[in-house]
């Protein structure tokens, strides 16, 4: 087919707008990883002994492990001794007590990224935790949330203020030795967000974490833990950017969600890490383990992700459906352009009775991008009446890109109902011409077609994020009518 390449290429060649570097003095450890480095990270954070031991145990496990080789991605081996495992913006005294004490340069960085941290500047009423390199620099709306008994703070602070909660839940969803990158994270994680919603509380605002990698040669290893107690409800948003650098940077995060009986957690991600340049130079390696545990009956965990950045994405947000009648959902848009590679998907593991899961995946490949969906739906022998619906669609733009689908289905109970649908389509020259004949520019036409393709996922995002996601895909907001 004659590819309608020119307008599409122009559309795809947009600049990465978040690629600037903030000039800040950093307090960093030297490159390299050893038990000594881990001790120093733990010491810098003033951690209790049990946590240091937990880290060291993870490290020892990690030493025995090898990186996973099964993903449909290729990159040269990573030298784990050539990475800085801890970098924090240097500050005068201890942690800032209020936003007024945060380095104004940092505040400006977040303003520039469209994440104003000043509470009075927040119109939408979203509480934000900002993580810069290895540490959390600011958390907004803490007081208001505290009135409901909600804990929303940096992980380090949670270790100090709520050690019993951290100790009770840390590593119970993603065990230390779960996989190579999770083990690495468990050893060296620096900061992240912590959320606890007490029994029966409906969190009055969306909670959000904004991750920023700034320093050179630095890995970001954040750890997020969200616990929704019985009957609690929370919607959590996560955004990420990084400067443009020629070297690859590693981001190996772990996110654990725990939903107790009747709890509801909605976790949304707009991931826009620096993807590298057109020829595949630089960019973030985004090797992330995200898992939710529907621990109680009638609990509900929903993952929504829009992945447009990173040189390589390796990420499978999953749900363990342990409680009876629990529900797991995964909605994903993954865009790969130029030399980007994404191997992403979800795992839904059904343990409880009458558990339900849904996987909707939309992969968009352009340029030389490679996009792989990898899914596992597992119905264990006790999961009477389990149901899954999986839909996995690929959209190809141009003739050099690739899309792959690897669904795995394991059913051990005869009452299970598992459905899988997959489609592959291409932005047609005829669609573009049709839209342009009605007066739309090629760019608007591509945006509209892509947006239409992603609609089922975008409608799952909180309003504010949906706008952001569509902008990221170069899309003007649809839906003011119809």
């Amino acid at each position, binding site marked *: 087919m004659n590819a309608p390449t020119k307008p599409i290429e122009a559309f795809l060649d947009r600049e990465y707008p978040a690629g600037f570097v903030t000039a800040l003095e950093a307090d960093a450890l030297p490159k390299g990883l050893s038990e000594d480095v881990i001790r120093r990270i733990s010491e810098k954070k003033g951690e209790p002994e049990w946590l240091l031991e937990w880290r060291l145990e993870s490290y020892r496990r990690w030493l025995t492990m090898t990186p996973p080789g099964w993903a449909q991605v290729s990159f040269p081996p990573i030298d784990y001794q050539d990475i800085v495992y801890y970098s924090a913006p240097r500050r005068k005294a201890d942690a800032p007590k209020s936003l007024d004490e945060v380095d104004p340069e940092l505040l400006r960085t977040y303003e520039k990224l469209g994440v104003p941290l000043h509470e009075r500047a927040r119109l939408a009423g979203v509480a934000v935790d900002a993580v810069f390199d290895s540490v959390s620099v600011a958390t907004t709306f803490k007081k208001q949330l505290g009135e409901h008994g909600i804990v929303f703070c940096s992980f380090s602070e949670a270790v100090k203020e709520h050690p019993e909660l951290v100790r009770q839940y840390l590593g119970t969803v993603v065990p230390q030795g779960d996989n190579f990158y999770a083990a690495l994270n468990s050893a060296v994680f620096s900061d992240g967000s912590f959320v606890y919603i007490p029994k029966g509380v409906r969190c009055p605002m969306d909670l959000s974490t904004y991750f920023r990698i700034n320093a050179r040669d630095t890995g970001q290893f954040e750890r997020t833990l969200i616990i929704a107690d019985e009957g609690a409800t929370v919607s959590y948003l996560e955004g990420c950017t990084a400067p443009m650098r020629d070297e690859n940077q590693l981001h190996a995060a772990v996110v654990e969600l725990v939903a107790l009986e009747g709890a509801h957690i909605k976790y949304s991600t707009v991931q826009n890490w620096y993807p590298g340049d057109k020829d595949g130079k630089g960019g973030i390696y985004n090797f992330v383990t995200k898992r939710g545990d529907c621990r109680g009956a009638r609990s509900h965990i929903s993952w929504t992700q829009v992945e447009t950045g990173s040189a390589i994405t390796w990420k499978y947000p999953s749900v363990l459906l342990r409680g009876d009648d629990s529900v797991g959902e995964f909605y994903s848009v993954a865009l790969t352009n130029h030399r980007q590679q994404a191997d992403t998907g979800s795992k839904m593991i059904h343990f409880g009775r009458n558990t339900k899961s849904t996987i909707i995946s939309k992969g968009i490949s352009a340029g030389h991008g490679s996009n792989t969906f990898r899914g596992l739906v597992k119905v264990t022998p006790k999961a009477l009446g389990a149901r899954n619906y999986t839909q996995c669609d690929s959209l190809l733009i141009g003739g050099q890109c690739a899309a792959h689908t690897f669904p795995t289905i394991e059913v051990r109970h005869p009452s299970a109902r598992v459905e899988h649908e997959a489609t592959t389509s291409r932005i047609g020259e005829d669609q573009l011409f049709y839209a342009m004949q009605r007066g*739309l520019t090629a760019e608007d036409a591509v945006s509209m077609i892509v947006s239409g393709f992603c609609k089922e996922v975008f409608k799952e995002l909180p309003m504010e994020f949906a706008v952001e996601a569509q902008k990221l895909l170069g899309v003007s907001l*649809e839906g003011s009518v119809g």
Partner: protein
Amino acid sequence: MLDIRNLHASVDGKPILRGLDLHVGTGEVHAIMGPNGSGKSTLAQVLAGRDSFTVDDGSVSWDGVDLLAMPTEERARAGLFLAFQYPVEIPGVSNAYFLKAAVNAVRRHRGEPEYDAMDFLKRVKAEMKAVDMREEFLYRSVNEGFSGGEKKRNEVLQMALLEPRLAVLDETDSGLDIDALRTVADGVNRLRSPERSMIVITHYQRLLDYIVPDQVHVLSHGRIVRSGGRELAHELEERGYGWIDEAQATLAQGAAS
């Protein structure tokens, strides 16, 4: 007014239009008839600016402006509308969103204020009534799962909303039963006006019983070979396209000897 001179166009190196001349005055309706492969649809697509066709020679002047120099979307905004023979499906994009984006693109170009959601809905619902379309079609994806007749109605609806100066209808009658044909033709007739020119491309005379043209042209091998009043359409209906080709062949021989 539209003035096409000596238009040559090809696709993948294969010539299709070979020296086409056509003049359409403002407010006139011209029918283009011809057998399959004569270049009817190519003419429509070239006028609309589809880039898979190459213009090799000739000129098209539209109210004094060089039409061929304009990008596709500029032609559309300036008031050229093509009703597609095979309207394209766009999954996930609601018809309402698509129509509003198109109408506002044209309105911006004309320096008119854009419609907000309320104004637009009012306008579009009124126009839908005229082409006998149910409101649910606003909220369905563009042309997705529409029947042949519904797609053509949707084209006429867009034409009504966009208020073009020049409308090209490419085999709008194909695949329509008689009732749908009548509805579509009524819709088109309502849009006839002294400021609006139309080129109605059709294979069959039948459509011209409903949309009565000012002139009829016969296209064969990429050229207009006969022009006349509406009686020419009836002649074609009776005698088929064969005699045109024969007459052409005789003519060509005469010219050669």
